[in-house]
């Protein structure tokens, strides 16, 4: 058994972290140049991204090789698990910041602009005539169509379908996990593949929804606080689904190569935790951004 390996494996030197840091630096540099309208910005950003991808293959590839070579004890496995759990917690806190902005705007900022409580003078002196409403693009009617109008995104149709898709994908990844524990490789393979496909479908429908918002609803990132919170929350969630789907695809390819055993499958487990996290964030989004 794994725990019989008494020593804790300590790698002696690794080039990958410094590759990662340099790539991050190049990405940040490229991004900042791009925002400052430099022609080279996008290219530099892309270069950093390529470096980061290269690093991912190298770093994670090394870890997988070490694992296959049997260097990892149960304790190393526990370090990985705890590390991933805390990483997901940090991601949760990132979303907490944006949800906080949404709640603050809806519960405090917009009502104050409308003259509630401490906002009485603000409303009468600066924004007289503005009444509290949600969704809103503010007393200045920022963004929207020529008259400053826009239509909010409903929760039926695509968002509801997407909720069903993501919830189903959470079920399929769990089925795959149980199959892995029972050493049912076929079901593991199918369950993981289905999860990838459902994730991909979710992203496709989200793209359709965005096009619909921009073309038909006059709802854009610039459409006041509603547009800002709507697109930033769903956008960052979408980015996380994309990342999760990429990780799932790699996991699926590893399954095809025969990786993971019923007892040792940290890689699979980490990705499935991440996927559940993305799913829970979506449920919160669906309730607070779309329905309420």
């Amino acid at each position: 058994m794994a725990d019989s390996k008494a020593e804790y494996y300590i790698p002696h030197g690794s080039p990958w972290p410094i590759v990662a840091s340099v790539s991050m630096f190049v990405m940040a540099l490229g991004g900042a140049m791009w925002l400052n309208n430099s022609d080279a910005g996008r290219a530099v950003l892309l270069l950093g991204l390529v470096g980061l991808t290269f690093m991912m293959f190298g770093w994670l590839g090394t870890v997988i090789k070490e694992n296959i070579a049997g260097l990892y004890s149960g304790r190393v496995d526990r370090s990985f698990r705890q590390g991933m759990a805390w990483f997901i917690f940090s991601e949760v806190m990132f979303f907490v910041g944006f949800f906080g902005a949404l709640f603050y705007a809806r519960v405090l900022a917009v009502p104050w602009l409308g003259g509630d409580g401490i906002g009485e003078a603000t409303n009468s002196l600066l924004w007289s005539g503005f009444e509290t409403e949600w969704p809103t693009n503010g007393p200045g009617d920022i963004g929207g169509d020529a008259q400053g109008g826009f239509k909010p995104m409903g929760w039926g149709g695509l968002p509801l379908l997407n909720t069903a898709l993501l919830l189903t994908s959470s079920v399929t990844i769990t089925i795959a996990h149980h199959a892995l524990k029972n050493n049912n490789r076929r079901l593991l393979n199918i369950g993981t593949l289905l999860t990838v496909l459902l994730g991909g479908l979710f992203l496709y429908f989200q793209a359709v929804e965005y096009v619909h918002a921009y073309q038909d609803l006059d709802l854009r990132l610039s459409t006041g606080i509603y547009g800002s919170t709507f697109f930033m929350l769903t956008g960052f969630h979408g980015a996380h689904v994309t990342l999760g789907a990429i990780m799932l695809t790699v996991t699926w390819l590893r399954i095809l190569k025969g990786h993971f055993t019923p007892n040792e499958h940290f890689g699979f487990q980490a990705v499935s935790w991440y996927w559940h996290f993305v799913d829970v964030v979506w449920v919160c989004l669906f309730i607070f951004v779309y329905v309420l």
Partner: protein
Amino acid sequence: MSDTTHEEHHDGPHASGMWRWLTTTNHKDIGTLYLVFSLIMFLIGGTMALIIRTELFQPGLQLVDPHFFNQMTTMHALVMIFGALMPAFVGLANWQIPLMVGAPDMALPRMNNWSFWILPPAFLLLLSTLFMPGGAPAGGWTLYPPLILQTGDAFPFVVFSLHMLGASSILGAINIIVTITNMRAPGMSFMKMPLFVWTWLITAYLLIGAMPVLAGAITMLLTDRYFDTSFFLAAGGGDPVMFQHIFWFFGHPEVYILILPAFGIISQVIPTFARKPLFGYTSMVIATSAIAFLSYVVWAHHMFTVGMPQAGLLFFMISTMFIAVPTGVKIFNWLATLWRGSISFETPMLFAIAFVVLFTIGGFSGLMLALVPADIEYHDTYFVVAHFHYVLVPGAIFGVIAGVYYWLPKWTGHMYNETLGKWHFWLSTIFVNVLFFPQHFLGLASMPRRIPDYAVQFTEFNMISTIGAFGFGLSQLLFVWMLIKCVKGGEKATEKVWDEPQGLEWTVPSPAPYHTFETAPKV
């Protein structure tokens, strides 16, 4: 097994020269990198402080123009917080936590290297903004919109470098938590852990909870400026004050991130030189946890003058004053540890005692600032500057210095020069008070902060303060010189270094070998 683990039996570094430091996964190497980086940033940030103090030596504008002055106040804070103090504590954690819990290394050694090597490029981005059109950010380290959105080309560089610093802190914090929860030697139960380890565990929780919120806040700034969002734009239904709420939800835990590890160091140093076990160990752990919890529900005391509802003012005033209770528990525990101890005054102990006294002064001025009616008078005056410099300089920085003197013989194998150490202590302690104490009076007389010019009646206290600043700054050069001398040679340190210090780190030779506790010790 044998052929796959042959690597594990190297005694020294795996590579030489620069490549060793770039690719190292050894917690001692990485701890050293963090500490050296922190020292360099401390000197850079200190130079900025001296530029500020030189301009303020007398009224009128003589040395720098106001815009550059504002860049200096902003960059001084960012460099000191993210470049000097946080890396110093992470460096101490890297060196000491594995030694103190009996672990062979940090739990995730590659990630450990990564979290350090994010820092230099991030600071390259941040410091390069000084040379950009429009200059470095000049709206204060708190980055309040709409002012900060007027930054020139530097703006995205600042945001992305803070993203990188946040990522570094989160990775470092994850590593520290996992090391503490998963790598302790058999018998090292949670309630046997040294207090430095405890305070770092709690600090790491604060980091993982707070840093991502900062990342979110500065991302909103970025999209407000470049992608037309309205988070902080009232016309669009947003609110600039919302930024302050999100920022301080990060910012207040951040100030405890800067002080809790110092509490831990003091709790190691005082028992050693009082030759008594720490008084009230359990209450120390509970008090630290209580401070950490409260730090998440007090943030709006930084914004009493923005126009909050009465209920909000009351809540944040009362919750802030609650913090005095667990902090008082800690102060009294340190005093009770000293009570009837067999005390000797080596340099680390001198700094620790100065910490207890001077940090308490900073704590008391904090209590004054917590009172809403009083704070409306003190807000944005030099009283605030005096308050947070008392908790950060003779507080956090003295904590770091005490820790460095305490563990330096263990790291280098040499004793530092005790006479020079005492000189360093007395010069630092006298000048830090000359520097910051008059600022209380300036603040109570309503001199505003972040202003390069002032009314003539503030001249004398400003002159005294500037003299203190140069005295304090120059005494730190003595520290740097002593550090270099101690690394190069000096009296050989014994295994225990001090009289009867408690803890696993004193059971390994001095200097600590490159690999320690490859087989877990029994506690």
